[in-house]
């Protein structure tokens, strides 16, 4: 007969080494899931070397109180699922506070083993723990381990399995004083037969504490609650305190007596530990902020700075590994005194010369692939044309060891199979393009999270919150919200994921909603193009976009905090500042890998089909013919854009081109500029830049007098830019937002809020601008003013008091 699988639940305080122990016990055989409906992670894994022992990692908690999400999730799990045994990890270097949770876990009436962790630190400090005495007092086995060093972990797990099979044997301690124990005994008696027996002490204490959530979950009859109220009141009168406080205070009194008995603390001078020395520097009154800014600069450089590892890896992933191909480092050499990039540039110039000469022009220029900016023009003549015709496209393999990218290989394979262009494009550009979009973000996520995991594991992250809390709580955020916002300057995807480090659910959600308003790297491309095309003499437009982003975060934070969605439950800032320690390499890598895996498999499942769909509607017409790049005006997207153009009419963008560019910007923000170039190609003008300028001129309503046409075209360009910068971020970021917000409802809330902000901003600028430039006043002017008035009200109304 096959034995039933044993479920071990790992429970303990945050920072007690629970995750290290979990990894030690399960090895690589684990998977990370979310608790249903909430963002709290649940990790399951199989005990190494067994097939029938399941280890479940509960969220790190300090107490089983009903007030924090993690705690409610953990205690509901323990009470409802009833694991076969609890393995309670206790930080030996912080025994008193850790044993507080232990006293609560013991009351659940489940088999339990206490593992005193960090014994290496305890011994190094010269302290000693009497495990036998502790075990006798707690009524359950106690083992000493060091998860980091791998000492005693296997024995702890084996003991837990044995304990699960044996059941509860020892007598659990009576923690409270005479009169409280008396009241509890009475409540227990009243509850007898009404709730499940094994948890009756737990239930009795919850009734005593008047814990409404537990009373509801345990289905305690109302008449019993009313009946025992008298006993609770008597106790409260006797101790001159409320019932909940009595329980908490007496738990700690019990623990104090217990540790005085079982724990020998060696005398030591204050402020001499390694941790204290570091802390003196990093939270120093003068040095704290510079050090924090320096660490942000390091992260900025790592993740998004030009030439930093994040950018180099991202370029390599997108253009090299996933795209055409790449040169193996250290194998490149020059041909005719030029490297590959210079040769490629020469070829592009020659191509432009040939094209311009054949079109009968006297000047030529090349366009920057990313920004759409035109280079300086050069004169061409017949000799130049003839010379240019001789220039051949450089062969990359002549310049070093060339490794073809997956995209190029896929294209070659399609060619060899002799499939038609339609199928080839569908596979290479559509499907593979979607996969590449998902994978293209992996390098930057890895880099950001390696750094964040390091900061978090070493204990600095808690100090960041400590230093920055003063500023951020003014607009309803937490000290830790600063990190996602800085990451957001580079890319919104790791920014949203970085919000994970914020414990309070409410602060985390607000941070996720707001952090993508900072213009990211891809949005900077839009800003660069519009600044160059329309606002050349207005140098302040580009930095203004960052200022607007910051203003939205501050004002949006204030408005959201006052709204009914985030009102109430003010998140207390009561936070442990853990001792500093050097994180292990494996721990940091595993931490990072878990996040990247979550991104690829969860977010990727949304991003990939959406990318393929958008690519499809951009490149096919309704008869399913593959279109040339410049025939986008016949695409399904153009037709569908025509249906929805009325939606953008109040922004001055009531045309299918405006819709198409904004929709395609959802694949990736920089796509907006590329699509504008494509949809404008049908217009007169030699270059993409001229196409786009003409396109915006064509958006100007007919009634505008000629003298103001230029100004209105600029206004519309501004409206388009604002709309695309401040509506929901690209699809990848939206998908990640949905995942991190936990529920669909909250995901939609984030998207709706962002859409509202972007739309309001663009509409207000366009409508008020039109009123100022040519005095046009109408329904939408009034609508814009009304919405603005609403926003001002939402920001400046007095906050509701609880």
């Amino acid at each position, binding site marked *: 007969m096959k034995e039933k699988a044993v479920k071990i639940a790992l429970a303990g305080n945050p920072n007690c080494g629970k995750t290290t122990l979990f990894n030690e016990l399960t090895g690589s055989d684990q998977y990370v899931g979310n608790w249903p409906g909430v963002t709290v992670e649940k990790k399951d894994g199989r005990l190494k070397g067994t097939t029938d022992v399941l280890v479940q990692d509960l969220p790190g908690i*300090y107490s089983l109180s009903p007030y*924090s999400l993690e705690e409610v999730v953990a205690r509901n799990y323990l009470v409802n699922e009833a694991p076969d045994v609890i393995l309670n990890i206790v930080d030996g270097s912080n025994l008193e*506070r850790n044993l*507080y949770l232990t006293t609560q876990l013991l009351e659940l009436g489940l088999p339990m083993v206490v593992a005193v962790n960090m014994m290496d630190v305890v011994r190094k400090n010269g302290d000693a723990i009497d495990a036998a005495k502790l075990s006798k007092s707690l009524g359950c086995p106690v083992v000493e381990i060091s998860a980091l060093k791998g000492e005693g972990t296997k024995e702890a797990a084996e003991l837990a399995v044995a304990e699960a099979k044996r059941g509860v044997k020892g007598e659990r301690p009576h923690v409270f004083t005479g009169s409280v124990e008396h009241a509890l005994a009475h409540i227990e008696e009243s509850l007898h037969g009404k709730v499940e027996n094994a948890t009756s002490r737990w239930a009795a204490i919850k009734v005593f504490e008047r814990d409404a959530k537990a009373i509801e979950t345990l289905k305690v009859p109302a008449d019993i609650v009313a009946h025992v109220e008298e006993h609770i009141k008597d106790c409260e009168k006797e101790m001159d*305190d409320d019932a909940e406080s009595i329980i908490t205070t007496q738990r700690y009194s019990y623990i104090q007596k217990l540790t005085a008995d079982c724990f020998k603390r060696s005398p030591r001078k204050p402020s001499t530990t390694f941790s204290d020395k570091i802390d003196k520097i990093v939270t120093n009154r003068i040095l704290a902020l510079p050090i924090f800014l320096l660490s942000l600069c390091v992260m900025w450089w790592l993740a998004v700075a030009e030439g930093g590892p994040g950018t180099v890896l991202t370029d390599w992933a997108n253009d090299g590994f996933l795209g055409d191909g790449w040169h193996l480092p250290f194998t490149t050499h020059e041909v005719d005194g030029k490297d590959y990039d210079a040769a490629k540039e020469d070829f592009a110039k020659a191509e432009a010369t040939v094209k311009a000469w054949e079109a009968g022009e006297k000047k030529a220029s090349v366009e920057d692939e990313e920004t759409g900016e035109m280079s300086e023009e050069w004169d061409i003549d017949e000799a130049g044309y003839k010379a240019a015709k001789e220039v051949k496209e450089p062969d990359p393999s002549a310049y070093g060891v060339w490794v073809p990218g997956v995209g190029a290989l896929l294209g070659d394979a399609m060619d060899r199979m002799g499939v038609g262009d339609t199928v080839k494009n569908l596979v290479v550009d559509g499907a593979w393009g979607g996969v590449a979009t998902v994978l293209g973000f992996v390098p930057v996520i890895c880099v950001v999270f390696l750094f964040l995991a390091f900061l978090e594991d070493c204990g600095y992250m808690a100090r960041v919150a400590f230093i920055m809390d003063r500023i951020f709580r003014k607009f309803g955020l937490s000290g830790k919200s600063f990190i996602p916002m800085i990451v957001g300057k580079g890319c919104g995807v790791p920014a949203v994921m970085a919000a994970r480090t914020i414990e309070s659910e409410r602060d985390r959600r607000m941070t996720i909603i707001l952090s993508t308003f900072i213009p990211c790297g891809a949005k900077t491309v839009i800003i660069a193009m519009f600044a160059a095309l329309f606002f050349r003499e207005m140098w302040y437009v580009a930095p203004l976009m960052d200022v607007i982003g910051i203003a939205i975060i501050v004002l949006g934070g204030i408005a959201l905090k006052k709204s009914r969605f985030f009102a109430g439950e003010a998140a*207390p*800032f009561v936070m442990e500042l853990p001792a500093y320690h050097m994180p292990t390499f494996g721990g940091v890598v595993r931490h990072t890998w878990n996040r990247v895996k979550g991104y690829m498999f969860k977010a990727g499942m949304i991003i990939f089909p959406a990318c393929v769909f958008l690519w499809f509607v951009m490149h096919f017409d309704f008869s399913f013919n593959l279109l040339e790049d410049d025939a986008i005006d016949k695409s399904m997207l153009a037709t569908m854009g025509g249906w929805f153009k009325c939606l953008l009419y109040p922004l001055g963008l009531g045309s299918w081109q405006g819709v198409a560019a904004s929709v395609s910007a959802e694949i990736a923000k920089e796509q907006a500029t590329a699509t504008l170039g494509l949809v404008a190609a049908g217009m007169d003008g030699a270059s993409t830049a001229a196409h786009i300028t003409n396109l915006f001129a064509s958006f100007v309503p007919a009634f505008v007098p000629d003298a103001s046409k230029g100004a209105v075209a600029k206004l519309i360009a501004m409206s388009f830019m604002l709309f695309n910068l401040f509506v929901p971020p690209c699809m990848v970021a939206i998908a990640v937002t949905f995942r991190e917000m936990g529920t669909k409802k909250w995901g939609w809330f984030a998207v709706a809020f962002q859409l509202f902000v972007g739309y309001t901003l663009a509409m207000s600028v366009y409508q008020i601008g039109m009123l100022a430039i040519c005095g046009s006043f109408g329904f939408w002017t009034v609508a814009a003013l009304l919405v603005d008035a609403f926003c001002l009200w939402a920001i400046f109304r007095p906050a509701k008091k609880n």
Partner: protein
Amino acid sequence: MTLNEVAVGGTVKIARLNGAGPVKRRIMDMGLTKGTEVTVRKIAPLGDPIELAVRGYELSIRKDEAAAIEVA
């Protein structure tokens, strides 16, 4: 006197916790119960929150929350 008024480096004993609900419970859960000895370790560079040493570890709370803790 309340805890937010204690000078940096001062060690005091908790006399009473005012207030109710989640914040009070959280503070007590973290070990700040009646009769506990607390040392104020430092104040954050911007003046708030403060860092305490209690039961052998470091805890950070805001001055607002510290104002609800009476000490002697």
